[in-house]
């Protein structure tokens, strides 16, 4: 059975004066209805780029996109990469929606929250202006904004950060889309508000049976809401697996490093953090071979210097857990144990 969104071999690059920025390289992932896929990576890992491509939000002139991203809609599949711009536009907001990191700048400062939500509704529904505001109020109520009927007439700057993000969600969901792409939706928010928003997303997913793609750098957030995780590094997916696969059976040295570098609130004794040395690579001049190789403490363990010369393939060691590393998962495990 095919999943709702199937992204296959997606390449996104931007030609610039300094060279081609290869932001997304042979990226493949999929997400089903009711499922949450987290895409994890640091800044510059290309984690947002492929999703913007799915939404058709890249500047068509300045972006080169190849590969496919198929939405399996009720009336048949559509490849949003090859479809016409207008076709993709008609899917935006209706079949797939997106929310962004900074809800302040993502909302138009000059229009009321209600108007902005109603505008999205009017695109795909017939109704009077009044109906639109009514629908907007309904949605605001749904996302937990108290006194929604009067708050609908407020402007974004009159909302708090958390409420703005709720309003963004209300706007994204007003046409009942099957896919919600949430790009760092809680990064700009305080922790107490973050947990509210994450809970809201979970509740709404249940209610609407949505597929959610959560783009984030925060492993804590991922651990709490994701079903599957794709870890990205240097524009490539380096590891892809279930939450437990990634957190308890990581097969890529980068994933491992990332997990180790996060201080854990539950850890009893404070220990020295195991930082990953070096800097993330530039997408313009990726290292040859494995992009992580310059920072990888295990690269010397691979014979014949393959790490520096050959890009490892994203291989499935069974059970749908994929990793892009020259080292075998078992070998990696042994090396980690040796070190400890």
């Amino acid at each position, binding site marked *: 059975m095919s999943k709702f969104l199937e992204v296959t071999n997606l390449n996104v690059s931007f030609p610039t004066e300094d060279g081609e920025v290869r932001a997304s390289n042979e990226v493949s992932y999929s997400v089903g209805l009711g499922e949450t896929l987290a895409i994890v990576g*640091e800044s510059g890992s290309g984690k947002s780029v492929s999703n913007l491509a799915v939404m058709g939000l890249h500047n068509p002139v300045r972006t080169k996109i190849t590969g496919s991203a198929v939405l399996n809609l009720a009336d048949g599949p559509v490849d949003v990469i090859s479809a016409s711009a207008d076709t993709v536009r008609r899917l935006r907001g209706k079949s797939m929606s997106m929310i962004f990191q900074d809800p302040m700048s993502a909302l138009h400062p000059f229009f009321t929250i209600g108007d902005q939500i109603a505008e999205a509704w009017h695109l795909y529904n017939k109704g009077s202006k009044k109906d639109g505001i009514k629908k907007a109020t309904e949605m605001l109520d749904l996302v937990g904004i108290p006194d929604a009927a009067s708050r609908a007439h407020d402007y974004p700057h009159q909302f708090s*950060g958390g409420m703005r993000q709720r309003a963004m969600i209300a706007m994204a969901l007003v046409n009942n889309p099957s896919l919600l792409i949430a790009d760092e939706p809680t990064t700009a928010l305080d*922790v*107490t508000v973050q947990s509210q928003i*994450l809970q809201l997303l979970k509740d709404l997913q249940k209610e609407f049976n949505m597929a959610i793609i959560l783009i984030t750098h925060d492993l804590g957030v991922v651990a*709490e809401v994701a079903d599957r995780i794709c870890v990205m590094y240097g524009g490539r997916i380096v590891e892809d697996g279930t939450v437990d696969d990634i957190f308890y059976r990581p097969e890529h040295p980068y994933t491992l490093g990332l997990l180790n*570098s996060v201080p854990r*609130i539950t850890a009893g004794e*404070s220990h020295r953090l195991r930082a990953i040395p070096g800097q*993330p690579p530039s997408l313009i001049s990726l290292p040859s071979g494995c992009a992580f190789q310059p920072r990888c403490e295990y690269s010397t363990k691979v014979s014949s210097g393959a790490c520096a010369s050959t890009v490892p393939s994203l291989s499935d060691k069974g059970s749908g857990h994929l990793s892009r590393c020259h080292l075998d998962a078992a070998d990696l495990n042994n090396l980690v144990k040796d070190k400890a």
Partner: protein
Amino acid sequence: MTENILELNNLTKFFPAKAGGIFSRAKGEVRAVDGVNLTVGRGETVGLVGESGCGKTTVGRTVMKLYEPTSGQIVFDGQDITNLDRKEMKPIRSKMQMIFQDPFSSLNPRHTVGTIISSSFTIHDIEPEGGVEHAVRELLTLVGLNPEHINRFPHEFSGGQRQRIGIARSLALKPKLIVADEPVSALDVSIQAQVVNLLDDLQKEFGLSYLFVAHDLSIVQHISDRVVVMYLGKVMEMAPTRELFANPRHPYTKALLSAVPVADPKIGRSRERIILQGDLPSPVNPPSGCVFNTRCWKAQDICRSVVPETIQISPLQTVACHFPEV
């Protein structure tokens, strides 16, 4: 020599809330910091946490005398610096340094790294042993940067490296206290760990004291000896790190901790979560009684009318709550 490098006694900082225009009078005041008592011991790291708008950054800046305190007392290294003027603060400033959140805007883009770091010497008219350049190179080495890069400009460095430059600058005068205002929150996860480790190492090497202002509880837990939790300008709870995280006494601390996502799915799934309702009230018009009462699930009538006393629960732990957790 006193035991504490820094003592804040009932520190208060109010900002006038203006409505604009030259004839408008102040409409009220933002009670950014409202009666904060806090100590930082020598060689100790005190984490100052809370959500945005809780006043933690204002505390840091008031300590540095970047803001004039409205009332209260700041004692640094045994000396009351509350009412010192700019000139009198100058010798103090060399012993008290600040690291900022944004490594992009806190470094002058037109100056080389060497100039930026050596400015600490020139401002205070200090000639370090072996000359300024030698000292700068040593500092660069110390924070893990290539000393050969002394003549490069800030934009030639990555975010983490820039934060290292900021740290090198603050270390130039061998300070006793460093106020670190969200020093890693602008950095990527893998880089955050590098900087946190660096701060750890430097503390061990120089016996530094840190007042570590951050919103990221996991980082604070990792680096701090003691943690102070603030909410709407007031200290809610203060405790040794382990105590605080293992056994939070203030409902707000508890909610805050439970809201922090844990990078461990199993724990995340199993633990009980407290999701606070609503948003932070406005600091211009804070709730009466306990400032947390509007979001507190344990709030009673008394919470809405009486400001809770700060209770000493154990020698090192205080909490300001009518109904602390047990």
